[in-house]
Structure formats: C-alpha cells, structure tokens
C-alpha cells in the first residue's frame, strides 16, 4: 500500500498544474454545494419557524371528520336522504372548559379557547372581508406568539377599549387606520359593531397580516350571533414536531376534528419535498460535474503512463494493485480538494450571512438565514470523494486491463 501511495504521489506531484486544476474543481463543487445546502435549509427552516410561531400547532374545530348521522337514519333505517340542512348555527364545542382542563392534564403544551368567525370590516367606504377570532388574552400568551408580534399596543389593551380589536399592520395600512380609530364590523347576520383599534401586530405571514383580526371572546360571539359559544380550541406544544401525533390522540379523545399545523399546511410542506428533491438533484449534479476535472487528469495520467502500467504488470504487480494507484491519486486530489472546498463553503456561507435583504413579507431588512450543519460538510465531502473515486475507476480499469505484451511489443 505504501508502494502504491508512493507511485501515486510521484504521479500527482510531478503534475502540479493539472493536479491543482483538479483540486480546484473539487473545491468549487464542494464549496458551492455546501453554500447551497446552507442557504436552502436555512431559508426553509426560517420559514418553518415563522410558520410554527405564527400558527397554532393544533386546532380543534367544532366539527366532525364525517357528516354526523341523522336522527332519521337511526329511527327509520332510511336508504337515502338528501338536502339535509347541515349548516346553520355553528354547534360550538360542548363544555369547552372541561375539555380544556382534561387536555391540559396530558398534552405537552397548553390550550386556549377562541371564537372564530368571518366578518366584514367597514372603514371610510372600504369594505374588506376578514377573519375574526375572539381570544382570551390571559390564555392567548400560552398558545401563540401574538404577544411578541405586537407592534403597537398590547394584547391586554383589548379589554381596555370598547370592543377593542387587534389587526395586522398590513390591513391597517390598507384601510388607513391607526391605533385608537374606530371601525365598523359587520357579521354574517347583519349584526354591526363599532370597534376600536387597540393595537397592531405583524406576524410575517401576509395572509394573516392582511385578513386576521383579534378581539375578546364577547365581541366575536356578538358578531356570530351566538353568545357563549366556543368553536375552536388552539393548542401550542413544547415540541411542534409532535403535533401530528398529539392531534390524532386529541381527536380520538374528544371526537372533534383536530388539525395539526402539518396537516393544515400539507400542500406547502409537499411543495418543500419537491423543492428538496430538485435542490438535491442539482447539488448531486454539481458534485458530479466538479469531479470531471479529476476524470480528465486520471485519464491523462493513465494514458501517459501506459508503459509504466505495462512494466508494473509485467513485473508481477496485480492488476487491481496497479489500478489502485490511480484511485489513490484521485483520492489525494479529492481529499485536498474537499478540505479546501469545506473552507470555501464555510466562507461563502459566512459571506452570505453578512448580506441583508429586504423581506417583503415582513417588511424588514434581515440577514439571510444560513443553516450551518456538520452533516452538510460530511455528506457533501463523502459524495464528492465517491465521485472522484468513480471518475478515476473507469479510466484506470480501462488502462490496467491491457495486456502488458501489447504495449511492450509496441515499445521495443
């Protein structure tokens, strides 16, 4: 092995320029791939974090997964029924307080009630459909990041102003309202309510910032025309990744439809999968391409060293041993290239993290979020090394397969 390494070393060290080009190829492939991995995963994690922060981890709705069986069904064994009025007033969650206290006893997190409805907001001639959620400020802090998302005012201010509401900055901008202004809320049954803007928030998700309004439970229930109803429980877990499991357990226990944040964003998450696949393909292709310089060098060396290969084989060195020389050469190029590639990748990531961009979602200037992970370095390095070995294997196999006499005959 030492012998093979020696021979390999003489080959690469007598071809400094070619060797450096090969190493540079590997370095760049590795560096840029690490940078891409850091950027992609960074932005994805950033997005998920925002999503998880903004949304309840599990939402329990006052509905069942399937249409409830009709009493007539049970009584008369009817074959088929149609045109059943299944919508009317929302049924609400029965005995919400006892459901919540029972949940609190076992879920790894907390739960808060809300009354959710739709309404129209009317201000200065502008009429915009919004989603109104009645909350309990003392409990809200345990299940959402709303408190930290407040830009003006506090959640507690809801109870200080008459029919106080909190709205997203984006919506306020659209309507041209400020904290302290009064707007008109119109409910589904035509119920109208004059409300005071008690504070502004910014979640970062435009869909929420433009169409979500929070109030106390009371005003929301008035708008719905159903006093005392709680039609939604929202859960926040210590570990958001448990949401799917806990949601299933909650649903089994309460019988109410429980939706985890993953389920609610299934389309978004599946688009992540597609994106991941595309990105991984591109990164793999980059690494493969970067090993072409190595392929080129090994091809050249095996070609130039045809005679040496024949000599070594004729002296009695085994074919695989001779082939290994060239694999070692590629490994030398690969390993050095990968080391420099790691440094390059780190520097590129570091450079990107210094760049701030204006995020139109949040309206703030933030640094690009980069995910630093040793796994990236290990995986990218490993794949690159494999690519290099593969790039060397094929020309080396071709060259070492030749019978030594064929070359010796030609040379003498």
């Amino acid at each position: 092995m030492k012998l093979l390494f020696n021979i390999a070393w003489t080959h690469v060290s007598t071809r400094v320029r070619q060797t450096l080009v090969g190493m540079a190829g590997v370095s760049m492939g590795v560096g840029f791939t690490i940078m891409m991995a850091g950027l992609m995963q960074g932005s994805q994690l950033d997005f998920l974090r925002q999503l998880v922060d903004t949304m309840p981890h599990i939402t329990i709705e006052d509905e069942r997964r399937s249409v409830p069986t009709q009493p007539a069904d049970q009584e008369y064994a009817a074959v088929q029924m149609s045109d059943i009025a299944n919508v009317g007033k929302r049924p609400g969650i029965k005995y919400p307080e006892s459901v919540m206290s029972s949940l609190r006893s076992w879920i790894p997190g907390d739960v808060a009630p809300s009354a959710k409805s739709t309404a129209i907001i009317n201000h200065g001639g502008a009429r915009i459909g919004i989603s109104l959620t009645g909350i309990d400020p003392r409990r809200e802090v345990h299940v959402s990041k709303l408190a930290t998302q407040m830009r003006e005012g506090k959640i507690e201010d809801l109870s200080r102003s008459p029919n106080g509401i909190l709205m997203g900055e984006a919506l306020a901008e659209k309507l041209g309202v400020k904290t302290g202004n009064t707007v008109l809320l119109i409910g589904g049954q035509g119920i109208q309510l004059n409300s005071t803007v008690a504070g502004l928030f910014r979640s970062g998700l435009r869909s929420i910032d433009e169409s979500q309004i929070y109030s106390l439970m009371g005003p929301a229930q008035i708008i719905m025309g159903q006093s005392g109803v709680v039609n939604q429980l929202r859960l926040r877990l210590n570990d958001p990744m448990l949401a799917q499991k806990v949601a299933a357990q909650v649903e089994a226990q309460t019988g109410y439809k429980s939706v985890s944040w993953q389920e609610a964003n299934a389309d978004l998450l599946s688009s992540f999968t597609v994106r991941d696949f595309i990105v991984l393909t591109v990164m793999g292709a980059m690494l493969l391409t970067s090993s072409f310089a190595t392929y080129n060098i090994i091809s050249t060396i095996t070609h130039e060293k045809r005679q040496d290969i024949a000599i070594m084989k004729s002296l009695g060195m085994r074919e695989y041993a001779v082939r290994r020389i060239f694999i070692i050469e590629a490994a030398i190029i690969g390993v050095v290239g990968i080391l420099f590639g790691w440094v390059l990748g780190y520097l590129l990531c570091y450079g990107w993290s210094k760049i701030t961009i204006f995020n139109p979602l949040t309206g703030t200037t933030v640094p690009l979020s980069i995910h630093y992970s040793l796994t990236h370095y290990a995986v990218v390095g490993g794949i690159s090394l494999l690519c290099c070995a593969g790039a060397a294997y094929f020309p080396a196999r071709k060259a070492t397969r030749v019978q030594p006499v064929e070359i010796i005959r030609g040379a003498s």
Partner: protein
Amino acid sequence: MSEIALQAVELVRRIEGDVAHTLVNGIDLSVKKGEFLAITGPSGSGKSSLLYLLGLLDAPSEGEVIICGEPTSKLSESERADVRLTKCGFVFQFHFLLPEFTSLDNVLLPMRAAGKMSEPEMRERGLSLLGSLGLGEHANKRPNQLSGGQRQRVAIARALANRPEIIVADEPTGALDTVSTQQVFKILRDIADQGQTVVVVTHDPALAARADRRIHIVDGKIAESTGQGGGEAVCEMAT
C-alpha cells in the same frame, strides 16, 4: 539427473485477425536449473514472442509452459502475476525503468510488491544488488541520469530482486555499446554460474557462443540446437 527449471511443450502462439499469423509454431524446449540458454534467429522469427510466453507475459494459443515443475496454462491472471513476481525475472531490450524513481527504488519495486521482507532488509538487498552490478554510487540517481548500460544493469538488478529461479532477457544488449554489452553478458553468465537459470535472446553470435546451449529459431520453429551435449539429453528426457 538435473532439475528442469523451465519447460515448453508444443508451444504455439497465433494471432487471430484479418491476416492470421503464427508467431510461435510448436516449440518444445527444456532448460535445466543453472543453465545459460541463448536464443538466436533472424529478426521477426518469433524470438520475443517465445520469450513472452516463457516469461508468462503472454498466454499460448496451444501448449504448456512449465515453470519449476508447475504447469501454468490453468493459472489465473493473478497467479500468473505472482509467478512473474517471484519465479521469473524479465529483462527487456529497452530498460523499462519507472522514470520518476531512483535506481534503488526501481530495484525495490518487486520486493515491495511481494512484501515478504522488512524495509531495511529490502534496502540492504537492493543496495548489495546494485553494488554487485557496479552501480553502488548510482543508487539514488534517476534513470535519465544514467547511461544506457547502467540503466540496463539496474533493470537486471530489478529482475533479480526477488531471487527468481529464472531470468529471461530479450536482447538486453541490443541497444548497448560494446563495453556495456560485455559487462551485461558477464553479469548474466555469473548469474547462471551461481545457479539461476538464464534464457537470453541475442543477435550477437559471439555472445551466443558463451552460452551453455544455443537454439536457433526460424519462422517460430527451432531450426537448430547446438551446445555442450546437455541440451539434447534434457530435451529427450523431457519428451
């Protein structure tokens, strides 16, 4: 009865192709241990082709090469490589040293590939081989710093490295001046006198005359066999 180191039985080597060609055409040959055999013949008569077969660099179309009593036609490619490494040293017309390595490293190459000795033992043997061939002070020179005769002697040292039974040399002096030619032949003669078997192809009749036995090849066949009696006797014994 003396031991037979190298034996060829009904050896045939054909080249298939558009123009089929028979390089070696039915050669029977036995070489005793310690014998110095010279092969002569006109250019293109198949001397090199025969030598490649004897040195297991090439495989015969028909027939058998028996090295130290062991038939070789059924050996795998790696087993043939092992025989070349340990039992049969080859010296080419052109030295075929590895250009990036010093004389010593070139001589060490077969020993390192065999991996039977420790590094100091190998170095000691390498240096003593080079010394005995008059290359003591050239051990650390590269092939391009040596003269033709010196290179050829390094190549002989390399062939001797693993103490093979048999040394096969294909016109080792073909590219050398007279002085170097004399030196190389004396070395080969000494090797044979020390008990190793030497088979050498040469154009030079004066040199062939110094061998124990001579065979003359024409068109891939033995046309004439002359020597100090032993040759024929061995041949008869073998067949």
